[in-house]
């Protein structure tokens, strides 16, 4: 049988007051304390020590804590603080997801923006290419015009005015013919736009006997805004005429559709 002093010196009472004993050990200490007042006295002393020691190291309690703790405790708002705490955590969680959404939004918006920009850039490049092509085309047209103008300024060109005939009295055209080089230009600005499926065809005519030589069709009438055409070579002709023919041209002129005619 252990003596009360030995029991005290075993250190079990410290564990009892500190709340670290198992149920059977607690019952044993309580039994011993009931039986031996010296043990109960030692327990009371340890209660003072373990009560004072944490209190001695405690930071100064905030002045408002008494009111807050009392309010929460007596109102039984056991979840109020927990809610505050979870609200705190929820706020962090909310902040985290907000950040994730913002990041995703940023990636999405910037991605869309970059995609649109790249499409825009492609369009700009395409427009630039088209513009360049158009510019090249314009330069070519301009060069051709200059070439034609230079050729027409040659004083060796004969100018033949073609006047409107019964089929189109108000029409007119002009023909430039360089006999040495045999080249011919036709200014068809005075002709109406041909109907769909029809085209103008230029003829070199010899009157005795009447023969007609095909010099070519004015196929690009609607596109060629200047209506200035360089045609095939001819060495000898007494007159020139332009008829309206079916698309692709005709082997012989349709005299009923003779729009303009001019003698050399």
């Amino acid at each position, binding site marked *: 049988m252990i003596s009360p002093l030995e029991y005290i010196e*075993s250190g079990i009472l*410290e564990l009892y007051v500190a709340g670290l004993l198992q149920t059977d050990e607690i019952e044993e200490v309580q039994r011993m304390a009931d039986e031996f007042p010296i043990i109960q006295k030692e327990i009371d002393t340890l209660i003072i020590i373990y009560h004072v020691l944490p209190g001695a190291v405690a930071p100064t309690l*905030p002045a408002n804590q008494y009111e807050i*703790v009392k309010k929460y405790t007596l109102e039984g708002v056991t979840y109020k603080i927990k809610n505050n*705490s979870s609200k705190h955590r929820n706020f962090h969680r909310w902040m985290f997801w907000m950040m994730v959404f913002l990041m995703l939004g940023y990636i999405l918006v910037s991605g869309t923006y970059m995609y649109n920009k790249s499409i825009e850039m492609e369009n700009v490049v395409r427009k630039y290419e088209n513009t360049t092509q158009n510019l090249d085309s314009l330069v070519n047209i301009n060069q051709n015009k200059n070439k034609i103008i230079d050729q027409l300024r040659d004083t060796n060109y004969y100018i033949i005015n073609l006047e409107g005939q019964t089929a189109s009295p108000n029409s007119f055209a002009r023909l430039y013919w360089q006999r040495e080089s045999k080249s011919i230009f036709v200014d068809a600005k005075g002709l109406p736009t041909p109907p769909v499926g029809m085209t103008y065809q230029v003829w070199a005519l010899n009157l005795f006997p009447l023969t007609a030589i095909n010099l070519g069709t004015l196929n690009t009438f609607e596109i060629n805004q200047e209506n200035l055409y360089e045609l095939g070579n001819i060495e000898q002709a007494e007159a020139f005429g332009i008829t309206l023919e079916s698309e692709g041209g005709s082997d012989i002129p349709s005299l009923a559709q003779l729009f303009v005619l001019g003698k050399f």
Partner: protein
Amino acid sequence: MSSEELRQIYAKDGTSFDLLYDHFAKTIYGIIATWFSSSDVQNELLQKTFISIWNQLDDFKDSKEPLLTHIIRETRNQCIKEKSTADSNTNVSFVKLLHEREELPENIDQIGIQTFIKKLRPKNIKLIQSILFAGKKPTNIAHDEGKNVRQIKLNLRESSLEIKSIFHLK
């Protein structure tokens, strides 16, 4: 605490809360302070612990364990819950907290902090920290330190005798 005061606390009447708070708020706050250094967490845990203790007063009344024991145990449980980790060690040494204290209990203040700490041996400081503040079981401490449980208990008793001597308690 007198038996009359204890009866008043257990009665949960008009004066119960004030008595409970006056007597134990600092003890609870001191234990919490060795677990968490954030004053926000300390204050929140003080509130949680008081609510929990208040709600369990009837159970404590039926038990023969001292009220202080229930309060110490409940405070540590709240700290463990808050920490949400298997590692239930305290973070802050109670001796370090003692250094930081501005207002000290009269008996300790008279002795002087340095004297108090000088008289308490480092191994006993560590043991009190583990047992009282962290609630570590002697079997676990013995395992960690390569000692037997009996030796740990004897060291614990030795620390009590040191403190009793410093406080001039018989």
